[in-house]
């Protein structure tokens, strides 16, 4: 099953840790919330998930109901 | 047996408390009521020590000895301290090595070589309290020898039974031919 990066913006406090430690620079904080940065590549390494203090970003398995490779709530 | 208010005094480590516990146990075994308590200083050894047993065939209210009917002192210090407090009718048992203070009102004094008997006859000074228990039972007639022996065995450390029974018997012997001064 395909893996997918998930973002739960309602839990995000915008600390920026995930973005800072993303090896591909694929995340950014906009208005105190994390989001995917356009034109970058996510390699689904999970470094963001490991260090997010608020469990707002994580790698999940694609539920099959979407083509999106990143999903935000 | 009428109400007895027994006070034993000595120095910490002489087994004064255990002696009153055994007397209390003897009273229970003999079907009487009893109340045993003690007061001691912070020292575990060498400090002054006072322990009491009330024995009565009636229910016991107040649990402390107020007017001792019997006092035993094993050290001069404790005799000097508690001797003058007791009334004329109190029976006082002292170790032979001690001398009664001048201001002691009690008339009935029995001096027996309790410490010496423990040391030389029984062979262990630590048994002086059990020698004393034998003497006291004989003087006061709390219970029979068999019951007292049972009470002793209920409270002495295991391994010391024989030694303590010997001490008790020596106590009986000591008191047999006693004389009140």
């Amino acid at each position, binding site marked *: 099953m395909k893996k997918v990066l998930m973002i*739960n913006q309602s*839990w995000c*406090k915008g*600390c920026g*840790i995930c973005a800072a*430690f993303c090896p591909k620079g694929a995340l950014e904080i906009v208005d105190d919330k994390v989001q995917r940065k356009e034109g970058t590549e996510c390699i689904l390494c999970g470094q963001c998930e490991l260090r997010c*203090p*608020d469990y707002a970003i994580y790698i999940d398995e694609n539920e099959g109901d979407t083509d999106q490779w990143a999903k935000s*709530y | 047996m009428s109400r007895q208010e027994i006070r034993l005094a000595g120095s910490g480590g002489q087994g004064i408390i255990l002696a009153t516990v055994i007397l209390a146990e003897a009273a229970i075994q003999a079907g009487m009521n009893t109340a045993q308590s003690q007061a001691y200083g912070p020292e575990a050894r060498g400090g002054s020590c006072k322990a009491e047993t009330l024995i009565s065939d009636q229910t016991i209210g107040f649990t402390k000895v107020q007017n001792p009917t019997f006092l035993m002192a094993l050290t001069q210090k404790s005799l000097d301290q508690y001797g003058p407090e007791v009334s004329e009718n109190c029976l006082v048992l002292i170790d032979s090595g001690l001398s009664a203070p001048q201001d002691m009102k009690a008339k009935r004094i029995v001096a027996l070589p309790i410490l010496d008997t423990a040391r030389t006859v029984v062979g262990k000074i630590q048994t002086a309290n059990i020698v004393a228990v034998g003497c006291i039972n004989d003087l006061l007639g709390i219970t029979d020898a068999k019951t007292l022996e049972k009470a002793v065995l209920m409270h002495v450390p295991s391994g010391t039974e024989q030694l303590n029974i010997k001490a008790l018997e020596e106590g009986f012997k000591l008191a047999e031919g006693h004389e009140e001064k």
Partner: protein
Amino acid sequence: MTVDTGDVSVKTKNMSNLIYKYMRPEHLPQIWCPGCGNGIIMRDIAQAIENLGLSRNSTVIVSGIGCSARAAGYMDFNTIHTTHGRAIAFATGIKLANPSLEVIVVTGDGDISAIGGNHLIHAARRNIGLTVVVMNNNIYGMTGGQYSPTTPTGAFGTTAPYGNLDRSFDIAGLAYGAGASYAARGSAYHVQQTTTLIQEGIKHRGFSIIDVASICPTYYGRKNKKGSAVDMLKWQRDNSVTVDQAAKMSQEELKGKLVIGLLHQVNYPEFTYAYDQLIRRLFEEREENE
């Protein structure tokens, strides 16, 4: 997809399987400040439990008072949030009453080494089978930034306005000196290493402590010009040395470094096990006598 939670099976929505399985989502996000290291360490604990396959029903989380103490409320186990400094003493009673429980104490530097210091050293000495995870952020966060026993000399806090005069405690070293049979140090940055250290600490039979360097950007960071949460984590990344590396370094070289890894482990009979042996012995003696 579904997650086996032990009692219910529900489609996950907006959290990872790990969080769904071991946390109480209805109480998330936590009250901790943005960038607080405690959330990272709490996840490490959950991951360690997942790796070990512990049953949630037979795992107990005990906490004291302070920021760290809120962890108990978020984690989906038998949880008890106790009084300040006393988490280990409560945990001792729980472990003694039911040694089959896995008892994990989640605490902070003030909680464990100031008001609770006595319980720490004696539980370590007793070698009772608790696992203590310290969220060590070098400051009292919940009361607003006072210096703690692990605040470095010279650092600032609201009660150290001219710089801290005290020397700071090495909590893992303290516990080790007191007889802890497992002592380790991790950091908020070193997620995988710390998770492994916690995991091994839980597995260890006896008293284990994992002193984890947390970060407090709100108070410690701001008061001491340490920058953002990101800066503080980067500091951990750039200034940590492993136990093996540290062994080859001089005292001078080690100054200002964070030594992480397993500091000490020894096998010694665990207290509740020893007590159960005692009970068995007494029962056997009685049977022989009868």
